């Protein structure tokens, strides 16, 4: 069994219109730019996929990555904690024009909901957001005299993430703070596709340092020298 794919286009070919897609990254760290851009390229060629629900901490920055997906009109809804950034004009304009839906989720609740999706936990209780607008309509229950909000798991049809090393079984490591949501999203998506900076053979990664075991990964493609979103934006890049 070898989970390696030979091209980026192959990696994003089965994402359907209306799919829910988790995309790794916190700001630019961990953003799988090449996978996202391959998906945009497919959309520009074929008109699909569109009407996507995208789950990410943010809502894109500048004119690359998720911002470029929104700019092309591929995204119907964002689920995120912080849709502001240094240059969030693409999301902001679409949102204020009513062209994109927003589900705002506190960051820790977002992380835990994704983990719950991957771990088979359909609901859990958190103190986060109790008594605030973001708890509206959610069940509240008391434990040991304190109020907690019940939150539901988040799952996705696909996850697109970026990792550092990946072996052919799908075992992954990450690079510094680029880890963020990616190990959770790998657990929570029906199909997880990874761009790895270096593809290696099984055994090349010490079993003690694997962060995402291969069971959570469906396919991976090597992208050596990946673009860093922050650097692209500082250079004023656009995609396409």
């Amino acid at each position, binding site marked *: 069994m070898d989970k390696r794919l030979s091209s980026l286009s192959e990696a994003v070919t089965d994402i359907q219109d209306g799919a829910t897609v988790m995309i790794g990254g916190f700001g630019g760290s961990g953003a799988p730019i090449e996978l996202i851009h391959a998906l945009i390229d497919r959309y520009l060629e074929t008109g699909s996929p569109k009407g996507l629900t995208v789950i990410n901490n943010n809502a894109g920055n500048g004119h690359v990555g998720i911002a470029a997906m929104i700019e092309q009109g591929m995204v119907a809804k964002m689920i995120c904690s912080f849709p502001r950034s240094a240059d969030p004009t693409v999301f902001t304009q679409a949102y204020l024009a009513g062209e994109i839906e927003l589900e705002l989720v506190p960051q820790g609740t977002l992380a835990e909901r994704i983990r719950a999706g991957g771990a088979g936990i359909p609901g859990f209780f958190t103190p986060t957001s109790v008594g605030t607008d973001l708890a509206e309509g959610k069940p509240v229950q008391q434990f040991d005299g304190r109020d907690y909000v019940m939150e539901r798991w988040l799952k996705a049809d696909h996850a697109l993430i970026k990792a550092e090393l990946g072996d052919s079984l799908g075992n992954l490591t990450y690079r510094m703070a680029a880890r963020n949501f990616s190990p959770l999203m790998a*657990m929570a998506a029906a199909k997880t596709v990874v761009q790895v900076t270096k593809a290696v053979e*099984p055994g090349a990664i010490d*079993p003690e340092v694997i962060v995402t075991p291969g069971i959570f990964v469906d396919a991976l493609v090597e992208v050596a020298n990946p673009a860093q979103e922050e650097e692209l934006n500082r250079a004023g890049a656009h995609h396409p």
Partner: protein
Amino acid sequence: MNQKLSNAQIAWRAAQDIEDGAYVNLGIGFPEMVARFQPPGREAIFHTENGVLGFGRAPEPGQEDWDLINAGKKAITLKPGTAFFHHADSFAMVRGGHLDVAILGAYEVAETGDLANWSTGPKGVPAVGGAMDLVHGAKRVAVITDHVTKKGQPKLVERCTLPLTGVGCVTRVYSSFAVVDIEGGRFVLREKLPSLSMEELQNATGAKLHVEGAVGDLICPEELADA
């Protein structure tokens, strides 16, 4: 009716249904034997709930490292691609539906798919381990078992009498006499030992065996008969 498959033959038969690249958890004890019989050209990836994925075979006696064990506390070995993780991640794999197959032992299996395999009743010390998690987590839950108890009582029954491990969770039983699927609350016979008549098999079974289409011959390697 003294002819029956050996444990090794039952394990061999169960192993034939495991696909290449499948993620598999084998219950402690008898089910561990399934790992020995992977068909040529296929390689399953074994999960043990104490935090190891993709481990290798048992070490040679004297070569054990007791920090590297499976859920049955038996020594295992590394192989290329093995990964370690903690117990919460391990049961995220189980509960989150990431395992393709779990193969477990049974005291009783009901035609409803209910399984009893953790407690023989109020006497003694109860112990459940990861069985209750596995039956609700893996995409496919199969049982390997003798068809009858040592006293000759059926283990495939209409309703379990012992405390349940899980409700409606088992979809296939590999027994010493037959391969039986559980579909729509019924036992459906898929294969049986050629030497057993339908009547003999039904008499050894505690609930009706339905037949839909052909019943295959359950034939296992002879050399495993004494294993």
